[in-house]
């Protein structure tokens, strides 16, 4: 128990010494708070149209301006961040559970199961994300749940590959053989003895991939294949704003900037965490 606490203290100490992680964690925390509090902190209803205020430039009453229908861009950005974070978090969590499970089982079982699973993963990973995402969305149709499914499918191979290599190394360890010899079943060995040893690394990568998932959601929305209007999504707002770039650039610029800040926040947090777990390469 004492060893556990001191290990935790050591990690926390290293984390607090790493400036990049701290900046990333602060940005991530602010984004999460904004996403949760959006209904209370948005100055206006994100769907409320006001024709008298169409395409108003940023001013005191509308700090980020208004869009084509006079809707407040700041309020829409805050609600859009909520959708981005929801899609990103749920897809990464699902991808992590399914992918890690697949990677561990493939490595642990070996043989044909491993060959088939890893080959399938290689093939899935050989599609560019956007192209595969589009293919899945064509089949499923647009909608919140379908975007989550599409991005989850894109996340699964990443986690599977990530979990596969360390499980291969771990299964040769004496304590795993010992666990097997006392009759523990495979599920228990994988969840109780393998998973805790690889989970830290997986958690670090999931922070980085959360950024990727949010970027993908924005890309699909930008192509008009994400969550359909009128729900505000950042990608969709950028797309709509492109037509007014010459005289109302604030629509695209601010909604795109929000995507950039969110992804950047999670990327520097993940990068910092990776520094801590692998100081040799990234310090």
């Amino acid at each position, binding site marked *: 128990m004492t060893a556990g606490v001191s290990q935790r203290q050591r990690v926390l100490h290293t984390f607090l010494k790493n400036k990049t992680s701290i900046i990333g964690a602060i940005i991530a925390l602010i984004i999460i708070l904004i996403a949760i509090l959006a209904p209370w902190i948005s100055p206006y209803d994100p769907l409320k149209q006001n024709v008298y205020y169409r395409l108003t430039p940023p001013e005191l009453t509308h700090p980020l301006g208004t869009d084509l229908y006079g809707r407040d861009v700041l309020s829409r950005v805050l609600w859009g961040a909520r959708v981005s974070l929801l899609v990103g978090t749920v897809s990464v969590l699902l991808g992590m559970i399914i992918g890690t499970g697949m990677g561990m089982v493939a490595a642990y079982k070996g043989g044909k199961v491993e060959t088939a699973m890893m080959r399938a993963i*290689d*093939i899935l990973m*050989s*599609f*560019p*994300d*956007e*192209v595969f995402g*589009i*293919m*899945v969305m*064509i*089949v499923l*149709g647009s909608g919140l749940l379908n975007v989550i499914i599409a991005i989850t499918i894109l996340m699964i191979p990443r986690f599977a590959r990530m979990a596969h290599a360390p499980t291969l190394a771990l299964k040769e360890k004496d304590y795993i053989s010992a666990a097997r010899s006392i009759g523990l079943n495979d599920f228990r060995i994988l969840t109780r003895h393998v998973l805790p040893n690889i989970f830290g690394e997986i958690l670090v990568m999931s922070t980085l991939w959360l*950024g990727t998932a949010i*970027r993908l959601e*924005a*890309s699909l929305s*930008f*192509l*008009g*294949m994400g969550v359909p209007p009128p729900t505000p999504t950042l*990608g969709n707002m*950028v797309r709509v704003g*492109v037509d007014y*770039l*010459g005289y109302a*650039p604030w629509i*695209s*610029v601010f909604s*795109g*900037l929000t*995507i*950039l800040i969110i*992804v*950047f926040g999670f*990327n*520097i947090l993940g*990068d910092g965490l990776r520094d801590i777990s692998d100081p*040799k*390469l*990234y*310090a």
Partner: protein
Amino acid sequence: MISYTIRRILIAISTLLIVLTIVFVLVRIAPGDPAEVRLGDYASKAGVEALREEMGLNDPMWLQYVRFLKGLVQGDFGRSMLNGKPISGDLKRALPYTLQLTFTGIIFGVLLGVPLGVYTALRRNALPDYLGRTFSLAGLSFPTFYLGILLMLLFAVKLRLFPVVGGGDIHSLGDNLQHLFLPALTLGLIMTAYITRIVRSSVLNVLSEDYVQTARSKGLKEPVVIYKHVLKNALLPIIALIGVYSIVLIGGSVMVEIVFSRPGLGKMMIGAMKQRDYTTLQSVMVVYASFVVILNLLTDLTYGLVDPRIKYD
């Protein structure tokens, strides 16, 4: 080397076959009847049925699959569901725009990213390193379409230095380059961010090796150590990851083509998707998949050339 090459080619062919099968299946299970799409909302039932028969959609799935593969082998991509014209013509027109964009992006990324990565690694933890790392992390975070829009806003809309949209005349060098500049800069900057990062970590890895210390202690000059001992050994992971990131770049090219209305494969794909022209969509997917498989094959073969040990794997 020959057996290595043959084995890699065989793996590439089998991968391509599986990928083509996935594309075929996905397009078949996508919602919407191709015959209804082509004839429109007011088509008669008999008319739709006749067209289904003509298009071979009533044939068993395996027969359609064999026909699909046979067509591809002969370079026949079928006909557009929308206008009945051969798709290969459209592909031939779109392909140069995408190839030009992707290759320029990769070259830009390599030319800028490799020196930047080496420089930041050599100045580890100094100001240039922090700046370089921030630049590359920002590049990794930028949605491609957003970077494209910002560059378009600055250079095309505000400064009017480049055309806002379009691909230009592919046969006129000046016009073509003018239209290529901003889309290629967008992809190139993103690629630079990826390459800077991998080159930096790869060089740092090699710098900590004993043989680099030995080379230095022999009194070799620093440029010789860097070029002969560090870069040569850091090259393999760099090539591997440039191959991987080129796939990312192909995905990015779809977004860039949409932003700049560049008449390449990405624009063709999104257009086909919006009009539910599934045969065109299927063909574009096939071309993208082939790109990726060929790119992976070339990456694997380059390994063999760069690192002779791999031949004996």
